[in-house]
């Protein structure tokens, strides 16, 4: 299935969870936030939230800023 991940088209396995996606990307759970189709996914739901074809996922964190 196709997922738009941080603005880029990516191919992902069916049945992948947010937790699975973060693990695959080697991203720790601390101090990141995830949005699926403009809705925030709470950390408690990372395991059970499964991705669907065409989902738009944003994974954000803190960078330097003023």
């Amino acid at each position, binding site marked *: 299935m196709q997922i738009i991940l941080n603005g880029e088209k990516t191919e992902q396995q069916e049945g992948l969870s947010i937790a699975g996606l973060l693990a695959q990307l080697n991203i720790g759970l601390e101090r990141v936030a995830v949005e699926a189709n403009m809705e925030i996914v709470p950390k408690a739901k990372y395991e059970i939230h499964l991705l669907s074809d065409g989902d738009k996922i944003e*994974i*954000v*964190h*803190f*960078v330097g*800023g*003023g």
Partner: protein
Amino acid sequence: MTDNTDKLVIGGREFNSRLMVGTGKYASFEQTARALEVSGAEIITVAVRRVNLDRSKESLLDFIDPKKYMLLPNTAGCYTAEDAIRTCRLAREAGMSDFVKLEVLGDEKTLFPDNEELLKAAKVLVAEGFTVLPYCSDDVILCKKLEDIGCAAVMPLGAPIGSGLGIRNPYNIRIILENVKVPVIVDAGVGSASDAAIAMELGCAGVLMNTAIAGAQDPIAMAEAMKLAVIAGRLSFKAGRIPRKLYANASSPLDGMFL
């Protein structure tokens, strides 16, 4: 001499340092970390951006201990209330507190705030339980509106972001100080240590800056200068300056003159 009882209180939290520092525009993450340490700042601003999917690259938080500082996420780059609200929600999910530096920009050239959108966003965010610190124009009517909405502080600009022009309208800042009860923090415009001291001598609760330190030829030295300027300005404000007079007033006594 630092007065340890003179705490800055924002949203029910106490801080010893009245200097808040941004984390953008440094030459390296090592330099960012060192400047922050030397500045003595306890509140540091950060931006919310996409994670780099190339995990071989380092990120800011690999260099900064988030337990040592309170991270204050900003909404830099947001031009609508909607985008700013979305950014704040993400920041709260990623971070550890409800504090946000709310900025809604009106224009890329001036980076002046869009105050109409700012008020809209502030209302929603306060209702959602955020501790909102809004970057705003140096306008007392607006600042009072932000206070009435429930913002924990107001952060009027001294001059455009990154301009280094200093406090262009100290009288506006004074009027704001006389009419709002929440902490007034000058955010943006400071260029040198004397600018920071002026903001503090006016009676501001604190100063927030980024470019003045990060863009200095020696950011570490400037971080220290800013730390001292904020302390000096605060002490000077609390000590109460002499009134300005047009003519001289001799410091040595006339009594006992032998000429």
